[in-house]
């Protein structure tokens, strides 16, 4: 085709317009990179800080005594810095919350993703989102005023502030993330799988539990891991309902978590005590890293399979 009257347009780099555009491109590129680096920098800084400030106390107390010591008495005349009670409480508390929250949240997700009428689903999903938005101090408050006295009366224990109360509060708190991630996973299951199952004469319920759920299992596993992460890092709500005494964990005893151990003493700590709190934070941080790695592995699995 002829391009009569149109001057040939240069398309090589070097003319002014192109140079200008290239410069803007580069600038924007650099700016965004910088913003990304700030995030990464924060993580690195926190990690570095935790490691540097967490290690001295561990060296002074001794790793085994610190991790496996059963007594925490940071303000006693002869102080003891064993954090086994905190570690076990965090693990038991999280496990308990998962045990209650996962079946509840998962079945709720199956209902919402597969069975619920659109109207009901909308309402329930907004409720779940709202649940996720409630500040943890409110959870703690309600737990303190309703759950703790309830447990005291129901189980006839002297004090309702206990591991059980913390587990129940955590179970509710992890529901939104479990429900939402499970719904996403269930909805990502190709419609063809379900059609194939129905066409073979399976009922809808059989189809959901024998085809949809297995096909979504890595996503659901990711939901569980996310719940674990949420539960293990929770501080304020569990501090308000667990009584916060450094006992070895027992369902009806007042207990202290890794998170609450740091939060409750930091304000007045000094010297080795303060350093030990940093060490606790380091242990907690390692837990979270482990959980993140697990989450990544699951998500990778779900992409591939």
């Amino acid at each position, binding site marked *: 085709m002829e391009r009569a009257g149109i001057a040939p347009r240069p398309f090589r780099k070097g003319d002014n317009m192109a140079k200008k555009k290239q410069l803007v491109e580069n600038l924007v590129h650099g700016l965004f990179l910088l913003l990304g680096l700030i995030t990464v920098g924060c993580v690195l800084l926190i990690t570095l800080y935790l490691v540097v400030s967490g290690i001295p106390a561990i060296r002074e107390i001794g790793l085994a005594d610190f991790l496996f010591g059963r007594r925490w008495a940071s303000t006693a005349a002869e102080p003891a810095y064993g954090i086994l009670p905190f570690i076990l409480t965090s693990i038991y508390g999280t496990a308990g919350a998962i045990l209650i929250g996962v079946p509840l949240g998962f079945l709720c997700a199956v209902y919402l993703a597969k069975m619920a009428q659109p109207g009901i689903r909308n309402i329930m999903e907004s409720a779940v989102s709202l649940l996720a938005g409630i500040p943890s101090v409110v959870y703690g408050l309600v737990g303190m005023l309703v759950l703790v006295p309830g447990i005291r009366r129901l189980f006839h224990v002297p004090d309702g502030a206990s591991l059980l109360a913390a587990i129940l509060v955590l179970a509710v708190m992890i529901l939104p993330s479990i429900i939402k991630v499970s719904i996403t996973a269930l909805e990502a299951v190709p419609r063809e*799988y379900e*059609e*194939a199952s129905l066409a*073979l*004469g399976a009922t809808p319920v059989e189809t959901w539990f024998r085809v949809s759920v*297995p096909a979504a299992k890595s996503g659901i596993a990711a939901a569980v891991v996310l719940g674990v992460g949420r539960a293990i890092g929770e501080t304020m709500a569990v501090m308000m309902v667990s009584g916060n005494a450094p006992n070895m964990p027992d369902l009806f005893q007042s207990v202290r978590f890794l998170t609450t151990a740091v939060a409750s003493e930091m304000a007045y700590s000094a010297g080795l005590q303060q350093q030990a709190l940093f060490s606790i934070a380091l242990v907690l941080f390692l837990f979270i890293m482990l959980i993140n790695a697990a989450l990544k592995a699951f998500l990778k699995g779900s992409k591939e399979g």
Partner: protein
Amino acid sequence: MNNIMTARDLCLWYGQAQALKNINMDIAENSITALIGPSGCGKSTFLKTLNRMNDLVPGVKITGQVCYREEDIYDKNVDVNQLRREVGMVFQKPNPFPMSIYDNIAYGPRTHGIRKRGELDEIVEQALRDAAIWDEVKDRLKKNALGLSGGQQQRLCIARALAVKPSVLLMDEPTSALDPISTSRIEELAMGLKDRYTIVIVTHNMQQALRISDNTAFFLLGELVEYGDTQTMFDQPADKRTEAYITGRFG
């Protein structure tokens, strides 16, 4: 020959849009019936009324009658799951479950209460043999079915449908996602199966209809324009529109 399925005055609406208009059609037992027509003509919709897969579409409305062995399948006392055992289906896109080859085939029988290992083994082997894929997969029954090629996956899906021992097998463009060699294998397979099953196949490929089917139904804009013996229809179409379509003037 017996008619295993019949449609009488069948109309179907998706919301306001009428997709099927007064379809009257008898499907002969142990034969292959091809449904042809341009996209959107209602042939797939008709196919899915035969095992009530259209029930899954929101806003669908159906009037008229579809009978399977003289029983109205849209009667409210009909157990849809039982119907779908009798009238199986193979989809356009191969859709094996993301599980092992064995579990794919055993899924249907297990759903219908067969739990004994020996019995399942037998059903799985028979279904895979019937679908002409046994020799290719017998050494990897425990492997994930998604590792098979597209053509193998489709034959696996046919085997999976056969494993619940249906009488009728509906195939919704089963070869449109496959290469020519896989296609011809599925065609051979279909022809081999018609002694024991009744096959209704939707196809875009008129040569395919001519090659494998006994009867052909030509759909256009929701109407059944012409229905009869395949050879006769392709040689001497009764309707101008059929002639125009099979000679490639539109579609």
